[in-house]
């Protein structure tokens, strides 16, 4: 059995760990709040944008745009969006697993795959395993639309130049604080927009376009990509902090449990020491009185 001193030291160490995990939990909670707020603030923008895009798509006669062209997919690019920091439970692990599975499946079909890594964790994992052609790390703590624009522009140009044929985005969809779902979305070629959605009749108003509707669509589609990427970034950031919050909460309660077991053990050891000492004294006095 461990000595009293050892156990005492251990209790101290666990208590310190608990302090750290609780602090991390609180930091994550406040970051999560701001990430969630950002997400909520973005919702009207995304919603309005989709409204307009759909109504324009409905009215444009032929949807022809380089971003909509379907080619025989030989070369595939994948954007993998992880967090920059760890200690957030299975957040990154699950995503990386999903990405690996995806890459393996596509690899079996004989496709050529290149990876674009957003977030340090994904970069670190895939660096030596697959062909990582671009990376964006240490950006997620503070970002705005410009990050989404720069990510999107980096993939739009080579797609139009036909350097690759398909682009997938893999990110953690934010369901709620404790649930993030790894999701695979095909970005390019863009799935057709607005064709199958019924738009309410009052939105079918005929617009006056300035410039022409086709020019308009050509400008709207890249913006659509920006919106998609930005939303994924927001969900990643909210999900990361939500996951960290949950896992740090778990860690804190584990610490508490450990402390209570150790305290019990410590009390037993102390009692054992006292008993042993008492036995000694009793034994000593008895020996003296006999003497």
């Amino acid at each position: 059995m461990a000595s009293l001193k050892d156990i005492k030291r251990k209790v101290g160490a666990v208590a310190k760990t608990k302090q750290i995990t609780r602090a991390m939990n609180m930091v994550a909670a406040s970051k999560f709040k701001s990430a969630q707020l950002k997400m909520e603030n973005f919702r009207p923008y995304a919603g309005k944008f989709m409204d307009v895009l759909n109504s324009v798509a409905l009215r444009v006669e032929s949807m022809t745009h380089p971003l909509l062209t379907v080619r025989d997919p030989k070369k595939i690019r994948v954007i993998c969006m992880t967090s920059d920091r760890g200690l957030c439970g299975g957040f990154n692990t699950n995503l990386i697993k999903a990405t690996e599975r995806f890459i393996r499946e596509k690899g079996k079909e004989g496709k050529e795959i290149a990876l674009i890594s957003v977030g340090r964790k994904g970069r670190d994992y895939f660096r030596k395993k697959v062909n990582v052609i671009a990376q964006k790390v240490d950006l997620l703590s503070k970002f705005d639309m410009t990050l989404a624009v720069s990510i999107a522009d980096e993939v739009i140009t080579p797609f139009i130049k036909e350097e690759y044929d398909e682009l997938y985005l893999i990110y953690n969809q934010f369901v709620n604080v404790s649930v993030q779902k790894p999701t695979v979305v095909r970005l390019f070629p863009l799935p057709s927009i607005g064709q199958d959605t019924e738009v309410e009749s009052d939105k079918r108003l005929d617009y006056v376009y300035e410039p022409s509707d086709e020019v308009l669509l050509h400008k709207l589609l890249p913006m659509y990509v920006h919106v998609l990427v930005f939303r994924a970034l927001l969900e990643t950031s909210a999900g990361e902090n939500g996951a960290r919050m949950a896992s740090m909460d778990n860690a804190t309660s584990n610490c508490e449990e450990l402390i209570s077991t150790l305290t019990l053990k410590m009390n037993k050891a102390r009692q054992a020491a006292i008993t042993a000492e008492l036995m000694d004294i009793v034994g000593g006095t008895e020996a003296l009185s006999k003497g």
Partner: protein
Amino acid sequence: MSDELILEVVTPEKMVFSGKVDEVTIPGTEGDFGVLRGHEPFLTFVDIGELYYLASGKKTYYAVNTGYAEVTGGKVTVLIETAERADAIDKDRANKAKEKATASLSQLTKEHDEYEKMHLALTRAINRISIADKFS
């Protein structure tokens, strides 16, 4: 035809403005245009420039960045990357951005990838300065 005009200015970060106005002027890519109530449904892109609306006899100005504007019925929706109210513009920051952009532009040629980016940054900075100057 509706008898009121509602303006909504939305950026990815937040809903900048939403409310009833009498008139709004937007810097479109094909030229500035004003919207009064009962305007035809209309859709156009917004350029870097100055947007203002008139409400209860008072004009409020914004420095805006690219995006687009949609007019339907009695509603104007402006979706833009950034919008700053004239009195909230940080002039020092704008001045710094202008200096930085000018400095890097002098080292770049038109063929350079960065050229267009810096040129846009310069336009934005100048726009913000001129709007801030007007109303400070």
